[in-house]
């Protein structure tokens, strides 16, 4: 294909040469070129290999609808699947073709084309079934993934995007003729208007074709300049250029992506795209139409392109991709291409029209006759042939004779469709137009207005009245624009979806979806196999499931299906176009919500101390908690955890428990409210005492636990699990508002206001005495499960005597700002007693030794307090509390429910594993009845062996018996089922 430059062009700066690399070779283009136009300028049309058959593919279109020319931008973090027809080149851009190996010219994968008769629709589903399940994962899938596909994923994630919100009255999508007219009528009205266009230059059809000769007796480009200036100077209309609306959500919520570096290399560290989130009163769709192609043998050869795209290259990029293209059409839309070619002194090599001579527009007829263009009416192209490019075509003329025409370029037009993607995204209804052979918007669901060809108005006759009528409700200026056309015709089309090949062959391919390599044969096969509903057919054949969503071909598929089923197209229906209109990158969607901003990181007031002291962190919800502390680099996690836990048992340890949820509950009816929320009864509880409490769901299952401190009947402080804080507060608020609005009670989160230190171990009392000399920590003055308020160096603190380790322990609550000071003080006075920090892992080990549960680890939303052996915590005399009635449901009183037990290996040297099943038989022979599973499992230095907590069926009555635990190596370990307490069963240490 030999292209020529048409230097009389306002958009391409022919004085400014730009060098770029394609597959490692250096070429030149001009400022304003897209990758596609620059490649065509260098006579390159082979730009990629197809998805499945690895067939050579070229540039098919000149815009966003491109199915073929997808390239990898090496110079931009290797961005894959970029449409060459959109992306503008800049100095030094490096581009690579996709899906080929070792090179684009000689691609090994073309072997797929040879085997193509077996790669038909449903091939994968039918073929890769056996001989074993593992074959799919280990052999088939890796092979298919290697052979099929588009570009390679980029390695780095460097794109930065900002999100901007807009709130406007009217959004006009598309800045073509109708979009500009609509915007013009809103100038200086009381409406805030956003005009969005995908291109850098507004104008649409005015820039892309020679259809219009005069507007208001002015040259179209002059009119355009004046109109844009008028809009730009207005106070109420804002223009967003280089911005593509990808999504039309409910309640007129639009999402649009703006490319901020069109024609420039993105600067690292700068925002390269902006995601606009637009809430608008009305949406006016002026996004035009898309030309569709036609199916015949080898309609995918490089050198074939849509006729309006050819014209767009001429008008918009100053480039005729070929000097003498053949034109094949079934409609009047390609007339203007003939006019454009002749205008610049070129002429089509032949004009082939499926319509009869009478149907063809008289002025086109005259033009063709006057310029001696070979004309074939009532004719069809049976096939295109050539090696990696189109070389000749076979034309069947009206007499049925076959003519061979040599050519290097073929322009197709199968008719035009309104671009209904956004309209259907908005859930509007479409109607089939039998005359124009396309789906057109009919009934909108939202306040949506369609104008121009987007509404299916393919003629310009009613331009003014259409705009005026549809914008009537806004009471804006009325338009009176005079248009004169170069090809003064009404849109006319004859039905033609597919031309059957001349010779029947297993290898003859007429494509219906270029991007996904779907042929018309696949469509037939799917229907034969019973997939005759259009949504099924789409998924079975993958037709229109590529990233282009079949923009140039999906209507053709409907036409072919309707013919095959002998149904009308509107009976066949359409598949639904879903957002996004065109792919948008994850980095654009993520915006600034990535890395440390992806999810808020919450840190305790002591965090910087942990950092300095070798803490290895664990994520608990959003919190960063020290998992364990490494005293030197060689210490393993196991060593650290054992060291920390032994130290708590022998000396004393300190844990930063600041992440525990804390909720303050106050009010006249606080006591009654707490009695309703928790299982325990707080009525007889003394002021200044604390109680371990459970919270259930209405289904009777344990949802959360914590310690409740009763300051008075009107004032409580509850702690929750670290992860459950928000849920518990939400639950309290919900019941306070919805079920018991008569109770006067208020609750507030004080999690972040107070830091919490848990100190425990036999030497804790000495440390506390030394750290807080004015407080009496004796058993009499400060018994277990009581709390006291004190002041220390002017800082108000609350000390609670409680323990999660089974040792003597205190929890200190300190206002967060003063916490580091007191932490440091305790650390320094504790040194002589061997005080050491411990992390969450040692805490888990210590609590499991005592059989204390962790909600969410030992429970899973199907465990009642009775299952846990915690019936004593249920306030049986209370009339009501959350989930009370559920505890006596037939299901919750079953005896064979899973219940909490302890597990130790019968042979103490054996290891146990978390998550493994408890079973009755030593041999694993399927089916294996499962009793339950291990929920927590640790090695304990104190015990000298592994131990575990488990929930097993009828567990309480199985205590004292033997069973087996499965292992990850598919064998079993003999275990003893014991009470879930492994250490200090009499709680002597706790109350010492």
């Amino acid at each position, binding site marked *: 294909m030999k292209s020529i430059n048409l230097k009389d062009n306002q958009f391409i700066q022919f004085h400014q040469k730009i060098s770029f690399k394609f597959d490692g070779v250096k070429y030149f283009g001009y400022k304003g070129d897209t990758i596609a136009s620059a490649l065509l300028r260098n006579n390159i049309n082979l730009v990629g290999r197809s998805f499945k058959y690895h067939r050579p593919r070229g540039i098919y279109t000149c815009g966003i609808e491109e199915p073929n020319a997808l390239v990898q931008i090496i110079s931009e973090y290797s961005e894959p699947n970029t449409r060459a027809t959109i992306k503008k080149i800049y100095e030094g851009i490096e581009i690579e073709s996709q899906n080929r190996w070792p090179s684009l010219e000689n691609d090994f994968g073309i072997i797929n084309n040879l085997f193509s008769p077996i790669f038909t629709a449903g091939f994968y589903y039918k073929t890769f079934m056996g001989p074993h399940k593992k074959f799919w994962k280990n052999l088939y899938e890796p092979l298919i993934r290697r052979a099929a596909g588009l570009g390679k994923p980029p390695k780095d994630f460097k794109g930065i995007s900002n999100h901007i919100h807009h709130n406007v009255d009217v959004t006009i999508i598309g800045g073509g003729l109708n979009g500009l007219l609509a915007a013009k009528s809103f100038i200086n009205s009381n409406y805030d208007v956003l005009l969005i266009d995908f291109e850098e230059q507004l104008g649409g059809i005015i820039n892309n074709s020679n259809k219009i000769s005069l507007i208001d007796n002015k040259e179209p480009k002059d009119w355009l300049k004046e109109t844009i200036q008028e809009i730009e100077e207005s106070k109420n209309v804002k223009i967003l250029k280089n911005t593509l609306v990808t999504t039309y959500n409910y309640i007129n919520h639009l999402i649009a992506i703006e490319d901020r570096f069109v024609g420039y290399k993105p600067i690292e560290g700068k925002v390269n795209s902006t995601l606009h989130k637009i809430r608008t009163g009305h949406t006016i769709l002026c996004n035009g139409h898309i030309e569709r192609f036609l199916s015949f043998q080898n309609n995918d050869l490089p050198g074939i392109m849509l006729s309006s795209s050819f014209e767009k290259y001429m008008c918009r990029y100053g480039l005729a991709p070929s000097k003498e293209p053949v034109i094949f059409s079934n409609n009047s839309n390609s007339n203007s291409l003939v006019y454009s070619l002749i205008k610049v002194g070129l002429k089509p090599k032949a004009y082939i029209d499926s319509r009869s001579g009478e149907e063809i527009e008289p002025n086109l007829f005259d033009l063709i006759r006057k310029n001696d263009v070979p004309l074939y009416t009532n004719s069809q192209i049976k096939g295109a042939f050539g090696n990696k490019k189109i070389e000749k075509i076979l034309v069947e003329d009206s007499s049925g004779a076959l003519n061979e025409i040599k050519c290097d370029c073929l322009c197709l037009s199968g008719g035009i469709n309104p671009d209904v993607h956004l309209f259907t995204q908005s859930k509007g*209804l479409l109607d089939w137009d039998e005359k124009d052979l396309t789906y057109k918007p009919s009934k909108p669901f939202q306040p949506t207005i369609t104008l121009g060809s987007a509404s299916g108005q393919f003629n310009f006759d009613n331009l003014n009245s259409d705009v005026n009528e549809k914008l009537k409700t806004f009471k804006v200026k009325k338009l009176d624009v005079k248009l004169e056309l170069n090809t003064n015709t009404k849109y006319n089309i004859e039905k033609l979806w597919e031309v059957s090949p001349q010779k029947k062959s297993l290898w003859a391919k007429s494509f219906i979806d270029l991007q996904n390599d779907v042929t018309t044969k696949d469509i037939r096969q799917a229907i034969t196999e019973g997939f005759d509903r259009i949504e099924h057919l789409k998924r079975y054949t993958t037709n229109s499931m590529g990233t282009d969503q079949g923009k140039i071909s999906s209507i053709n598929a409907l036409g072919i299906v309707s013919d095959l089923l002998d149904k009308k197209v509107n009976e066949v229906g359409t598949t639904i176009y879903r957002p996004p209109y065109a792919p948008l990158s994850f980095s654009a969607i993520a915006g600034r919500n990535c890395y440390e901003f992806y999810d808020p990181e919450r840190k305790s007031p002591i965090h910087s101390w942990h950092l300095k002291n070798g803490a290895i962190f664990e994520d608990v919800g959003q919190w960063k908690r020290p998992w364990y502390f490494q005293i030197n680099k060689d210490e393993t996690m196991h060593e650290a955890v054992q060291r920390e836990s032994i130290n708590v048992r022998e000396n004393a340890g300190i844990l930063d428990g600041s992440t525990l949820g804390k909720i303050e509950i106050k009010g006249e009816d606080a006591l009654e409210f707490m009695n309703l929320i928790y299982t325990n009864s707080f009525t007889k509880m003394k002021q200044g005492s604390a109680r371990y409490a459970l919270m259930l769901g209405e289904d009777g299952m344990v949802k959360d636990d914590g310690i409740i401190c009763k300051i008075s009947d009107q004032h409580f402080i509850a702690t929750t699990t670290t992860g459950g804080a928000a849920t518990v507060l939400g639950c309290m608020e919900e019941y306070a508002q919805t079920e018991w609005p008569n109770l006067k009670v208020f609750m507030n989160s004080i999690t972040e206001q107070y830091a919490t230190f848990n100190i425990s171990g036999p030497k804790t009392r000495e440390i506390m005495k030394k750290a807080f000399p004015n407080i009496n920590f004796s058993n009499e003055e400060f018994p277990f499960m009581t709390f006291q308020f004190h002041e220390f160096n002017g800082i108000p603190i609350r000390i609670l005597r409680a323990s999660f380790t089974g040792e003597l322990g205190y929890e200190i609550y300190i206002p967060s700002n003063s916490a580091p000071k007191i932490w440091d003080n305790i650390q320094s006075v504790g040194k002589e007693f061997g005080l050491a920090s411990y992390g969450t892992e040692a805490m888990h080990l210590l609590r499991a030794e005592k059989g204390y549960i962790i909600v969410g680890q030992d429970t899973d939303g199907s465990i009642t307090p009775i299952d846990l052996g915690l019936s004593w915590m249920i306030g049986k005399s209370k009339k009501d509390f959350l989930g009370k009635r559920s505890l006596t449901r*037939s299901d919750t009183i079953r005896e064979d429910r899973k219940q909490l037990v302890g597990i130790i290996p019968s042979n103490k040297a054996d290891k146990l594993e978390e998550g493994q099943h408890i079973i009755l038989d030593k041999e694993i022979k399927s089916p294996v009845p499962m009793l339950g599973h291990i929920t927590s499992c640790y090695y304990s230095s104190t015990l000298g062996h592994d131990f575990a907590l488990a929930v097993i069926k009828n567990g309480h009555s199985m205590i004292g018996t033997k069973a087996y635990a499965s292992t990850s190596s598919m064998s079993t370990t003999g275990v003893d089922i014991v009470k879930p307490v492994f250490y200090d069963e009499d709680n002597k240490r706790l109350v010492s």
Partner: protein
Amino acid sequence: MLIINCPYCGPRDQSEFSNGGEAHVKRPDGSKEIGDREWGEYVFIRANPKGLFYERWVHTHGCRKWFNCVRDTSTDEILVTYKLDEKKPNLNNFKSVVKTPSGEPEVGSGNFTVEK
């Protein structure tokens, strides 16, 4: 994304709210005898109609107040929002758009009307 009119704060984006399922489900009085079936229905059974539906929402990232609304589940349209202590509106006051035999509204359900 929906716009929800919080009765306390006014219209806000859906992302500020959480859905709380069916509204006007009465919690049985715990001080009285409650049958297994009655309790089970309260805990586990909720209506799931296509069309008009009383629903609870909470303004989680706002005033944290619970309120009720009437939503058309087939079109997602929220027809009215009202405070918990307000009387529930009569559904006959609203036009349900569910028309076609399968219960799909003609417009807005995402399904095109196909002659059956």
